[in-house]
């Protein structure tokens, strides 16, 4: 395999799905830090990736790997005052124009404009995004009216259509329900309707099915796939569940302690994982009918205030080499569309 070291993720790996023109979002060397009383938490520490138009990009990792903070950074909604985007660029492409989200203050007019026009987000807990004191109808209509210049009556008509579309019935009656009158799965659907009301270019889904029962999860995942085709949006799908990743995504980013450790197509990640962390994750999940011993990664995720030097995964890594604890691993291109931040793929570096 041809291996060339590079300095950042995302330089290669587009050929298959895209060419440069089709980029929707570029995240470049993003660092998002939090000043906590325990110290400085580098929640996102030098992350590079791209989202192409119409693709579903999965972000997978365990708790504390920075996947949620990455998504909040893209929305420019990092919790204030302790958190901040320390450095980096978040370039959003629309109509031939490129804006850097990271350069705007979170509450500026321009930022609100970008959010309401192009971005939408859904969460694990629908109640963290729906307001309990407004009907779901009025929350959907708000999105429609912000984006489109339509009368209240037309907005209501479109809200009914949205509610039907996400599978809440009977829509004409449910439109006047408050969130407390709906079940968890129905609220999740309502939240998706609210998010899609403004017809966003990028939907960020942060563990959207984690709290749901398995049958409801299947319904919501199917719904998201249908809606993506219909609305031709890009989805950034954040989850810890590798099975959901496999079912939903085109490409996958694997994160560990605030850094991206591997990027590849979903096939590469499942059949030819490069980074020992990705390999470990895959060996940790039970697969139905394919009886095998689980071989978990030893130890647990280190605390964000007390990260090991250089490669953060080295203390848990079964393939650790001397260089891993003395020098930061760069990003290596392996094959056409896959990249890993691991010394194993250095041509000069030791023996595999």
């Amino acid at each position, binding site marked *: 395999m041809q291996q060339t070291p590079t300095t950042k993720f995302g330089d290669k790996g587009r050929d298959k799905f895209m060419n440069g023109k089709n980029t929707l979002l570029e995240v470049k060397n993003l660092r998002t830090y939090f000043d906590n009383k325990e110290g400085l938490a580098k929640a996102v520490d030098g992350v590079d990736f791209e989202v192409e138009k119409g693709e579903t990009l999965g972000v997978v990792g365990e708790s504390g790997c920075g996947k949620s903070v990455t998504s909040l950074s893209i929305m420019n909604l990092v919790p204030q005052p302790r958190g901040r985007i320390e450095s980096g660029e978040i370039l959003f492409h629309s109509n031939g124009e490129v804006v850097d989200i990271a350069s705007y203050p979170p509450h500026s007019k321009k930022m609100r404009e970008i959010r309401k026009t192009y971005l939408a987000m859904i969460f694990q807990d629908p109640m963290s995004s729906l307001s309990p004191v407004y009907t779901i109808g009025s929350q959907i209509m708000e999105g429609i009216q912000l984006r489109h210049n339509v009368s209240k009556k037309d907005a209501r008509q479109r809200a009914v259509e949205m509610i039907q579309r996400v599978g809440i019935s009977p829509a004409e009656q449910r439109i006047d329900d408050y969130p407390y009158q709906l079940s968890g799965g129905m609220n999740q659907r309502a939240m998706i309707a609210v998010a899609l009301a403004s017809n966003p270019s990028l939907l960020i889904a942060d563990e959207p099915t984690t709290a749901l029962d398995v049958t409801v999860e299947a319904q919501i995942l199917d719904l998201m796939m249908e809606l993506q085709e219909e609305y031709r949006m890009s989805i950034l799908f954040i989850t810890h569940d590798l099975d959901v990743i496999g079912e939903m995504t085109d490409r996958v980013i694997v994160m560990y302690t605030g850094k991206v450790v591997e990027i590849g197509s979903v096939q590469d990640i499942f059949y030819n994982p490069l980074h020992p962390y990705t390999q470990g994750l895959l060996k940790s999940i039970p697969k139905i009918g394919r009886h095998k011993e689980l071989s978990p990664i030893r130890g*647990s995720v280190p605390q964000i205030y007390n990260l090991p030097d250089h490669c953060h995964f080295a203390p848990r890594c079964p393939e650790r080499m001397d260089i891993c604890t003395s020098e930061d691993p760069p990003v290596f291109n392996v094959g056409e569309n896959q990249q890993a931040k691991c010394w194993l793929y250095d041509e000069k570096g030791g023996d595999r």
Partner: protein
Amino acid sequence: MPDDNLILDVDNLKKYFPVRKGLLQRVVGYIKAVDDISFELQQGETLGLVGESGCGKSTTGECLLRLMEPTAGQIKYKNEEDEWLDILSLSAQQLNSIKRDIQMIFQDPMSSLNPRMSIRDIVVEPLEVHGIGNKKSRTETAKDLLEQVGLSEYFLNRYPHEFSGGQRQRIGIARALTLDPRIIVCDEPVSALDVSVQAQILNILENLQENWGLTYVFIAHNLSVVEHISDRVMVMYLGKLVEIADTEDLYNSPLHPYTEILLESIPEGDPKAKKKRGKIEGVVPDPSNPPEGCNLHPRCPYAQEICSSEEPELINRSDEEKDHFAACHFAEDLELKGYGDLVEGIDVG
């Protein structure tokens, strides 16, 4: 008398919660959290219990330990002297001796460990309650137990907040082992844990089972985890048991439409696999007002007239050695799809 290898025999277990309304808080109805279920537990096996939230699986687990008082039914336990005792009719003193034999591991290791107690105190507390050993021997026991679950004795004087989720779950397991139990009821023991840590805990549970001859009731909503660890699996829906079978049989040739719905719903990660998923209808109905007849019938793709009027019985449908219980009028007629039939493109089973 049931056959020799049984350790627990549950008959017609019911747990009803009253629904009260109005100024006088009159009882206007009942939520039948567990509604007349019967099953047996073989010594040394892992019996998985799956179902969606609100189906009564945790309530069942708590009733087994009498952490919750059942409304009716019998739970017979065979102790080490081969005597059958009904857990529900025992005096407090007799119950105490049985409680040593049946222990529980909980989902959330943070809320089940007292934050003001050191790890040593948490692990040896059951010994103190039962007056076993002296201070020195108890500390020795604690060291042994921590080693069993892969923690260093160096942690003895630390407190729960100093540990990660996975380590706390290990402490919870050590505490459950303190009294040398025979049965452990594991209620969602890995669902709050990260993927890599979840596998560690599953391996620990399997090793302990082998070394200590433990019997597990393993309650979880994650069907892949249950498939991995269980010898037999029970499926619950709205307080009822709908299917009990050998793990392989249940996943490969289910006999109840609800089991098929669950298998259809599982996300399959393998990118080569194509999941054939029918449209899954509706949600779990309100448990205070369950449907008449078979309570699945409003969601069931195979429902017929009889399903809305007559409740199906949970009967053994297998003529082979292994039992396969299913509560469906058409269990023998339907040809339901197993997990292998539902995924295309990969080899399962």
